[in-house]
C-alpha cells in the first residue's frame, strides 16, 4: 500500500509539473513556486541527515581508535565553524571568515594542486604512442597543452588555430554526441519513473 501511495504521488507530481511548464496561468506559477519551496525544504532535511551521518561515522571511528587524530580534527572543524558563525557572525573580519579564508580554502587548494604532481608523473610514465589512436590523442594533447601557454603569443597563428580546430571540431562533435545521449537517457528514465515502470527508487523489487 505504501508503495502505491509513493507511485501515485510520483505520477501526480510528474504530470502536474510537466503540464505547468506549458501554462502561463497564475495558478500554474503558484503551484510551481509552492513545489519549488517544498523541494528546498526536503533538501534541507537531506542536509540534516548528512550532518548526523558525518557525526555518527566519525565519533564511532574515534571510539574504535581508527585514524583518531584526523577524525578528531574533522569533528573539531565541524563544531568550530558553526559556533564561530553563530557567536561572531559571518561578516568581513569575523573569525568565521578568517578561518575559511586562511585554513579551509588554502587546505583545499593545496590538495587540489597536488594533482599537478601526479599529472606530471603520469605523463612521464603512462602517456605513450603505442598505437595510431594513442598517437593521435598524444599529438592533440600536446597541441592543446602548448596552446594554453604564453608560447602561441610569440609564434605564428598556426598553433592557436590548430588547437581551436581540435576544440571546435572533433572535441565538440564528441561532446555533442555525449550530451544528446545524456538528454535522451534522462528523458527516457524520467518517463519510466513517472509512469511507474522504473521503480528502483522505491528500493527495488516489484
Amino acid at each position, binding site marked *: 500500500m505504501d508503495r502505491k501511495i509513493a507511485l501515485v504521488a510520483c505520477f501526480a507530481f510528474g504530470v502536474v509539473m510537466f503540464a505547468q511548464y506549458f501554462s502561463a496561468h497564475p495558478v500554474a506559477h503558484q503551484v*510551481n513556486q509552492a513545489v519549488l519551496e517544498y*523541494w528546498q525544504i526536503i533538501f534541507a532535511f537531506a542536509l540534516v541527515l548528512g550532518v548526523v551521518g558525518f557525526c555518527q561515522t566519525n565519533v564511532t571511528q574515534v571510539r574504535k581508535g581508527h585514524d583518531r587524530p584526523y577524525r578528531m580534527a574533522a569533528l573539531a572543524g565541524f563544531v568550530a565553524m558553526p559556533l564561530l558563525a553563530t557567536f561572531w557572525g559571518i561578516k568581513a573580519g569575523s573569525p568565521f571568515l578568517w578561518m575559511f579564508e586562511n585554513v579551509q580554502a588554502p587546505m*583545499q587548494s593545496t590538495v587540489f594542486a597536488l594533482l599537478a604532481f601526479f599529472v606530471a608523473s603520469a605523463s612521464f610514465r603512462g*602517456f605513450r604512442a603505442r598505437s595510431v589512436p594513442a598517437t593521435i590523442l598524444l599529438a592533440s594533447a*600536446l597541441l592543446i597543452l602548448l596552446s594554453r601557454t604564453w608560447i602561441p603569443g610569440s609564434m605564428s597563428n598556426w598553433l592557436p588555430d590548430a588547437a581551436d580546430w581540435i576544440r571546435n571540431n572533433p*572535441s*565538440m562533435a564528441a561532446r555533442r554526441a555525449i*550530451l544528446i545521449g545524456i538528454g535522451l537517457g534522462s528523458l527516457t528514465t524520467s518517463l519510466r519513473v513517472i509512469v511507474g515502470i522504473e521503480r528502483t527508487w522505491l528500493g527495488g523489487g516489484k
Partner: protein
Amino acid sequence: MRLQTRHWVFASLFVLIAVVMASGIRLSVPVSPETQRMYDFIDSLPAGAVVLLSFDHEASSLPEIQPITRALLRHCFEHDLRPVGLALLAEGTAIGYRLMQTTAREYGKEYGIDYAYLGFKPQYVAAILSMGESISATFPQDYLGRPYDSLALLHGVENYDDVAAVLSIADGSFTTHWMEYGGRYGVPVIAGVTAAMVTTYDPYLASGQMQAMVGGLRGAAEYEKLLGRKGGGGARGMLAQSAAHLYVILLIILGNVAYFIKRRRSA
C-alpha cells in the same frame, strides 16, 4: 630512502614553478575571440543593469577562479553595472562575498546601492527555477540578514525579467543548470569557468545557449589585458601554468623517447 624517478619528477616541478614565480617575468598573452566576446557582451549592457553573479564553485579551485572573477567584476564595476551575488555551492558563499566586497572597494562602490550579496541557497535546480518566479521569495534576506526589500538596488528586481544576465562562476557543471533551467525564463547566461571545464561548455557557446565564456587562467590573463589592469593574478598564474605545461610536454617527449629506445632494444 632511495629516490625514485617520480620523486625527481615531483621535485623538478616544484623547483621549476618556484623559480618561475620568483623571477617576476611578465608575459604578453594575445586575446582570444572567446574572451573578446565576453568583454564585448559586458560592454554592451546598459549602465545600471543588474547582473546576477553566481558563485558555483568550491574552495579548491580558488587560485583559478579568483583571477577570473576579479577581472569580470572589475569590468562590471568600471561599466557601472550592478552585480548581485549568490552561491549555489556552500563553499562559494564566503569566497563570493569577499571577492565582491574587496573589488567593490577598489571602485568606491556602496553595498546595497551598487552591489548586493544574497548568499547561499541549497538545491540548485529548485533555486534557479524559484528565482525565475520570484527572487525575493527565494532570498527573503541577503547574506548579512537584511530584508530583501531594504536594499535599494533590489527594488524592482523581481525575477529574471529584471536581470540583464546571469554570470556563473563555476568549476563544475553548474553553468549547465543555469542554461537548462534559467534558459527556460530566457535569461542570458555567461560564464567564467576553470580551464578543465572549457571543452564541456564549448557546444553551448557554439549553439548560442551561452552568450560568452572566459576560461581558465589564460582567459583571466587575457581579460586583464583587455581591461589594461595588472595585479589580478591571471597573468601571474598563467606564468606558473605555462611553465608546468611545458614541463609536462617535456616529460611526455622524454617518456616516449625512452619507450621507443627500450622497444627497439627488445625487438
